């Protein structure tokens, strides 16, 4: 068994900026969805954005002007995480620090803006910054530049499982001895008219346009699609013995990781949930944790009819009917590639505080769901271990098992 200690937390999400703001908002319930001026006139004209995110004041003028928002969110989250770990990036041995971040849609806003410039005024009007602003890998590159991390840096792309995949890969870098510290998690900011339209046209989004505040309702019988969101969640991971040796505060440990592919369909999860089931069983085996020890699952729970149904089947088979489950996407909406990173942190906070936040908007549990979906109010629950599951288009499944310290 190998424990990667979570010593730093960085959250920039629709539930707020910083771990405290997020934890308060999650437990208060209520969704972050609201009308979005950038989506005005579209079939889905609302989203969950990070509130009060002023890139220039948070990052300075250069980064505020020259980086795409998906990178800006990540750099702010990474700085938070390093600070909360009590580390100083100006003095650490950067060669021993890695960066592994999940992303799926890159700098959609930049790409779309420059495509418009190209179509309107021709090639001479296209910014030379388009490529470095928009490539998905650039977020790992910019975070590495920002904190002087000269160890391995990479971006994982397993769609909405990317953040969880990144945490799993980061743990492997610690276990192999390649790194002593890894910044891991995910980021996404693609709330553009074209990208949201693309998601809407494939039938992935909610159609509850009359009431955005009730649109993200994981495991509810009346759910009808996810609510698009942006955000970043980044953890500082270290070998547990290293963290203890330097006297760091440890929120929880990432003790197991599992991944599996459906090999079934481009966008639909396997109807039996076989892929996520295998990922979770692998994570449990990796952690040496029995199903009965899992106190709760922070589920992927996107609020789409298919995801929640199949995920619930898998969780029930592996952990048993009545297992406590929450989906924090009821508050945050679906942050796509960032979700796995954000929810790994939420899971760590649940273990740390002994509290499971409620699933917002859950009014009438889908009768096919045999899980104990926490709703209405936070639930006090002391746990030895918890799990976080993630599923992505392409049939990617990832599961993390976290243990309390």
């Amino acid at each position: 068994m190998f424990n990667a200690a979570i010593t730093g937390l960085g959250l920039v999400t629709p539930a707020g900026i910083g771990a405290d703001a997020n934890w308060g908002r999650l437990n208060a319930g209520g969704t972050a969805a609201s009308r979005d001026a950038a989506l005005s006139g579209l079939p889905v004209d609302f989203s969950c954005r990070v509130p009060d995110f002023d890139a220039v004041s948070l990052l300075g003028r250069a980064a505020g002007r020259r980086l795409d928002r998906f990178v800006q969110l990540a750099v702010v989250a990474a700085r938070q995480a390093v600070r909360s770990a009590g580390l100083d990036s100006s003095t650490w041995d950067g060669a021993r620090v890695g960066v592994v971040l999940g992303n799926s849609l890159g700098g959609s806003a930049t790409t779309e803006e420059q495509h418009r410039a190209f179509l309107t005024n021709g090639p001479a009007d296209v910014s030379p910054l388009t490529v470095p602003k928009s490539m998905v890998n650039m977020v790992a590159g910019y975070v590495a530049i920002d904190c002087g991390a000269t160890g391995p840096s990479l971006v994982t792309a397993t769609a909405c499982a990317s953040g969880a995949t990144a945490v799993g890969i980061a743990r492997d870098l610690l276990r192999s001895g390649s790194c002593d510290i890894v910044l891991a998690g995910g980021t996404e900011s693609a709330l553009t008219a074209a990208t949201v339209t693309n998601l809407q046209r494939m039938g992935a989004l909610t159609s509850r346009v009359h009431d955005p505040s009730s649109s993200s309702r994981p495991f509810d019988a009346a759910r009808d699609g996810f609510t698009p969101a942006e955000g970043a969640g980044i953890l500082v991971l270290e070998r547990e013995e290293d963290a203890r040796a330097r006297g760091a505060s440890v929120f929880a440990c990432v003790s197991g990781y599992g991944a599996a592919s459906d090999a079934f369909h481009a966008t639909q999860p396997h109807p039996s949930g076989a892929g996520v089931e295998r990922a979770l069983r692998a994570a449990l085996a990796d952690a040496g944790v029995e199903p009965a020890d899992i106190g709760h699952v922070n589920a992927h729970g996107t609020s789409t009819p298919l995801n929640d149904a199949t995920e619930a089947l898998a969780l029930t088979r592996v952990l048993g009917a009545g297992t406590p489950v929450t989906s924090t996407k009821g508050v945050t909406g679906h942050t796509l590639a960032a979700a796995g990173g954000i929810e790994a942190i939420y899971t760590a906070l649940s273990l740390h505080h002994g509290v499971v936040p409620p699933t917002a908007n859950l009014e009438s549990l889908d009768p096919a769901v045999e899980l104990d979906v926490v709703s209405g109010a936070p639930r006090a629950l002391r746990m030895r271990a918890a799990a976080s599951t993630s599923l992505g288009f392409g049939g990617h499944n990832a599961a993390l098992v976290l243990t309390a310290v």
Partner: protein
Amino acid sequence: MSDLHNRLVTMLIDDLGVEDRAAEPGITFDEIDVDSLLLVEFALLIRREFGKELPEGSLTAGSTVADVVGMLQEA
């Protein structure tokens, strides 16, 4: 400083996020970390703002805002 000079400095600072030292007379682009990509971006912004095309490669790391003013007055 001319209005044109001041406008160019404002573009560097506000639009490209360059440090305030861009306003110092005689400072080169290299000294304020304006790299080759930002120089191309600056030329693009100048074209949009003034409708004038700077010859490719005319802006270099050693150029100053005063050099750009001269180029625009000749263009």
